[in-house]
Every structure is written in structure tokens, then in C-alpha cells.
């Protein structure tokens, strides 16, 4: 009796010790090593991953994050190690570069760079594209459901303030984008750091609140498709996908200028498989691969060679591929440094003041 130790007590202890012993890093199963990719879920078609693996023998280990801020915190805490390829959005490239979290890309190893659209390169968030290679890009502008809203009447961000849209407006749940709109409506840049301007934007945004039905950064197309909102601030890819289900949902670029964003590929400073990361980047820049990516995911590719392979209805769709003038008028987000604290303070006030 004294010696029969209960199985239910021993089992967990055995399990735990077993797992500890066995969970040392496993043997490398691919012949040419691995590449650790950190990206959004579903932001890279499975076919691309498996084709790459088949062709090069490099195993792609793909893990995901659900926000740029969280990704930044994790990479920073790991001191730029652990991951080989990360996909931050515009101003995070800026910040990661400034804080030395990412390493310069060796352009000599990426022959397919020549396919990229020069007008989308050399942007303020990474002058000269030292650290980043563009992957997919898009805009944030105005989505409308023309069954309820007269498209002709909507010309700019300011129209969202129309009392006719009371409780029918959608905004993305991103403080830089919402305040970016507030600043642009007043004629300032979306990257403004002047506290007086930010406060003015806050006052302007307060007057918009009665119109706002919800803030959403998860599938913002759903409230449009569910007819809970009729107009709002939204990303172009969402409207493109929504229009496939409901052709009455459309996209309008505001006269004050749309907000543009670019998701880029960067290599963290202490990445272990730098060579493999470069091989993967080069693969992703192949025209056929870039075309597949853009078509499956629904956002625009910066790869001009890929564009030529695309069907004309997609290539000429202004929602996905705006004309050069719209891109000129638009503005890419950059890091605002410590002004983020001011933005945060007013964002809290905006939300708590309900």
C-alpha cells in the first residue's frame, strides 16, 4: 500500500519531465536549412510556401502575429533574434530601423528587385530601401454602400461628418489612422507631431462620434456586408473583397488625400538564416509568384512585372490599383517618435468620453 504511488500523481510528473527532455530543438529535416517567417495569418498562400520548399529544399517555418505593435514588442524583447523574415507595415519599418532591430538587405543577392515599381520605392519610412523590400501595399480611404449613399456626393473625409450618416459610419480601430484622418481634414499631415494640431484633430474627431457606429480592425468589410454601416474609413482590399459579394459596395479616394501603407519584408538583426531569407525574398519577387500572392490575398503588388501578367479587370481596378495622381496625393505613415504619447492621450479621451 505504501509503495503504490497513485498513477494520477506520477503521470503528470512523468509527462512533464519527458516533455522537457524531448523538447530540445528538433533535428533539421530540410536539406538546405530553414527560414523562420513571422507574418500575418493567411498573408502568404500555402501554394507559395510549398512550391518554395519543393524547389529549394528550404523549410519555411511560419508563425503569426495579430498586430504590428505586438510583433514589434516581441521582436524587440527577443533582441532581433529568433525570426529570419518579418513583415512590418510602413512606420514600423521606420521604427525598427531606427532602433537597430533589423539589418540592411544585401541587394546583390536579390536579382528580382528590378521588377519593383520605382514610384513605390524610396519612401520616407525607409529612404533608399536599405532595410525593407516591399511585399504588398494598399490604401485607407472611404468605403460606401451605394444602395444607401450617393457616391457622387462623397468627395472627401469631411463628408463623413454629414449628420445624414448618424450612427452609420465605420472607422478602423487604429489611432494613427483615425487621427490621420482628423489631421488631414484640418489640412495637416497625418504624421504631424505638433501637440496643438493633434489636439485640434481631437476636437474635430469628437464631433464625429455621434456618427460612428463602430470601430473595427477585424474584417471591417463585415459591417458593410451586414448593412450595419453605409460609409466609413476602410482598407481597399476589404472593399475589393466585399464588392465581389455585393457590387454596390465601392471605394472612394478622398480629396484631402488617402492614407497609404506598405507591408515590407525585413530581416531582423540577429536572424540565424540570413542567406535563406534572401533566397526567399528573391523567390517572392518573381513575377508569377507575386501575381499569385496578390490575386489570392486581394491586395496590390508593387511588382510591375507581376502586374503585366494580371487580368486587365484587376490591373485596371482603381480600388486595388489607384492611378499615379492618387498615389501622389496620398501619404505614407511614418514613425512619430514620442508624439505617440500625445496621440495615445487623446485617443483615450476620445474613447472614454462616450
Amino acid at each position: 500500500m505504501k509503495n503504490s504511488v497513485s498513477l494520477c500523481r506520477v503521470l503528470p510528473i512523468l509527462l512533464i519531465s519527458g516533455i522537457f527532455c524531448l523538447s530540445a530543438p528538433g533535428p533539421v529535416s530540410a536539406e538546405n536549412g530553414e527560414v523562420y517567417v513571422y507574418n500575418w495569418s493567411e498573408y502568404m498562400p500555402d501554394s507559395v510556401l510549398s512550391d518554395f520548399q519543393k524547389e529549394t529544399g528550404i523549410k519555411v517555418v511560419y508563425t503569426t502575429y495579430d498586430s504590428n505593435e505586438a510583433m514589434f514588442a516581441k521582436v524587440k524583447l527577443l533582441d532581433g533574434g529568433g525570426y529570419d523574415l518579418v513583415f512590418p507595415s510602413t512606420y514600423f519599418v521606420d521604427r525598427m530601423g531606427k532602433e537597430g532591430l533589423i539589418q540592411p538587405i544585401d541587394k546583390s543577392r536579390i536579382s528580382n528587385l528590378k521588377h519593383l515599381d520605382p514610384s513605390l520605392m524610396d519612401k520616407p519610412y525607409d529612404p533608399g530601401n536599405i532595410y525593407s523590400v516591399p511585399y504588398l501595399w494598399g490604401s485607407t480611404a472611404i468605403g460606401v454602400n451605394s444602395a444607401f449613399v450617393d457616391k457622387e456626393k462623397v468627395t472627401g473625409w469631411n463628408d463623413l461628418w454629414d449628420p445624414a450618416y448618424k450612427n452609420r459610419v465605420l472607422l478602423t480601430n487604429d489611432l494613427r489612422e483615425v487621427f490621420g484622418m482628423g489631421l488631414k481634414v484640418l489640412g495637416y499631415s497625418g504624421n504631424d507631431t505638433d501637440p496643438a494640431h493633434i489636439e485640434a484633430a481631437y476636437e474635430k474627431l469628437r464631433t464625429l462620434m455621434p456618427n460612428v457606429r463602430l470601430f473595427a480592425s477585424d474584417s471591417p468589410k463585415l459591417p458593410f456586408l451586414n448593412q450595419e454601416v453605409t460609409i466609413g474609413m476602410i482598407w481597399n482590399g476589404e472593399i475589393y473583397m466585399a464588392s465581389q459579394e455585393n457590387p454596390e459596395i465601392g471605394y472612394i479616394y478622398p480629396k484631402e488625400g488617402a492614407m497609404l501603407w506598405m507591408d515590407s519584408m525585413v530581416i531582423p538583426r540577429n536572424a540565424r538564416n540570413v542567406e535563406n531569407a534572401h533566397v526567399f525574398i528573391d523567390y517572392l519577387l518573381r513575377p508569377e509568384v507575386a501575381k499569385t500572392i496578390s490575386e489570392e490575398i486581394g491586395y496590390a503588388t508593387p511588382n510591375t512585372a507581376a502586374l503585366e501578367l494580371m487580368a486587365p479587370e484587376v490591373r485596371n481596378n482603381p480600388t486595388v490599383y489607384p492611378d499615379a495622381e492618387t498615389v501622389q496625393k496620398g501619404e505614407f505613415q511614418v514613425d512619430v517618435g514620442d508624439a505617440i504619447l500625445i496621440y495615445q492621450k487623446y485617443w483615450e479621451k476620445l474613447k472614454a468620453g462616450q
Partner: protein
Amino acid sequence: MTRSRFFSRFYLGFIFLFLYLPLLILIVYSFNKSKYGTGWTGWTLHWYRSLWDNTLLLDAAVNSLIVAGISSVAATAIGTLAAVAFYRYRFIGRKVLYSLVYVVMMSPDIVMGISLLIFFILVGLPIGFRTLLLSHITFCLPFVVVTVYARISGFDPRVIEAARDLGAGEFQTFRYILLPLLMPAVISGWLLSFTLSLDDVIVSFFVTGPSFEILPLKIYSMVRLGVKPEVNALSTVLFGFTLIMVTLSQLLVKEKKR
């Protein structure tokens, strides 16, 4: 008596319906042709077929089940022992440790996630499966402790005294007297731990490694582009599987009793 029995069955049934309604909607929509769950456009098995091909999603699901399985069992074991220790033994720092158990429940997930990550880095543990497991056990612990403690308090201490007088040692008292009495709470604690572990996102995000993807993280990451109905299909499959297993074990137990 029959009227109160009717009321009792009705109430239980109604609450079960409330608990299962979202799940049923989920299951039905896994057969919906529409990609975005906005309206019914027709029956299809397409999502189940693409789920079969989606190795990343399936791997993440298996990973989550492994982590949840191990961490819930470990948390239940440690938590039960802890509840017994807090109730029966007097030792230095007992009150402080007991309060610290509550602190785990009171800290926001993100604070816990980041502090654990920094702690692991300072101590030099490689970030991966091990750290994920340790973190899951830690945040499941209080739920077991509180549940088991609630049950153990109010038990007649004379039963335990009687056992001691008859010559039983501490371990025997625990194994043959306390544990059977505590079983409903232990099981409840295990069920809660498993549930918590399966669905944890924020703490797991920070303490998991670059090679270990878990399901809730992957699902939350999908929201940027829209959660695909493949996830609904996966949940339906998991639910069906669990239901069958639970029902089977129930029938087997009944057989044994006969």
C-alpha cells in the same frame, strides 16, 4: 413533484440551448458557400476539403491540443495539492503565497505575458514549447486552487482526524480520503484549465517560440483579412470528435458498472 421536474428539465434544457446556440451557428456556417458569413448562399463541403489541405492550421490545432492537455493535467495536479496544502498545513509564507495565487488572476494578460517573457530571458530559458507550457500551467493554477479550496473548506475535519487516529499517513489521507471527496472539484478545475489553455492568445503570443504555432494565435491573426470558414470546419470536426469521445467514455463507464 412532476411539475417541478418539468420545470427543472425545461430550465436545464434552455440553458444548454443558450450555451450551444453559437456553436450550432458556427457548425451550420461551416457548410455555407459564402466566405464571409454574411448570408446563406448554399451548401458546400468545400471548406472541409480545403481544411484537409491546410497543414499550417491543422498543425497549430494539434500543437494547441498537446499544450492544453499537458498543462491542464499539470495545473490540476499542482493546484489540487496547493489547495490541500493551503487548507491543511501551516507553513511560513502561507498567506503570502495564497494571495499570490489570486494575483495571477488579477493581472491583465498582457502584463503577465510580457513579464514572463522578460523573466524567461533573464533566467536564460530558450523561448519555445517549454516556456509556453510553464506559462499555461501558471495561469491555469488559480482556477484549480479556488475551485478545489471552495470544496475542501467546510468538510468535516473529524473525518480526517479519524483517519489519522487509525494510523493513516499524510499521503494516504490525501489519496484515499481527501482526493475522492474532492474529485468533482478536481474535475471541474481540470475542465476549466483545459478551456483556458486552448483559448489563450495574449500570454501565449509572448512566450511561444518562432517554431511553435498555436491555434488561437493563428485564428486571431486571421482577422486582418477575414477568418476563413475553414476555421469553422476545424471547430466542427474537433467538436464532433470530442463529443464522440465523451459519449463513448460515458457508455463504457456504464458498462463497467454493470
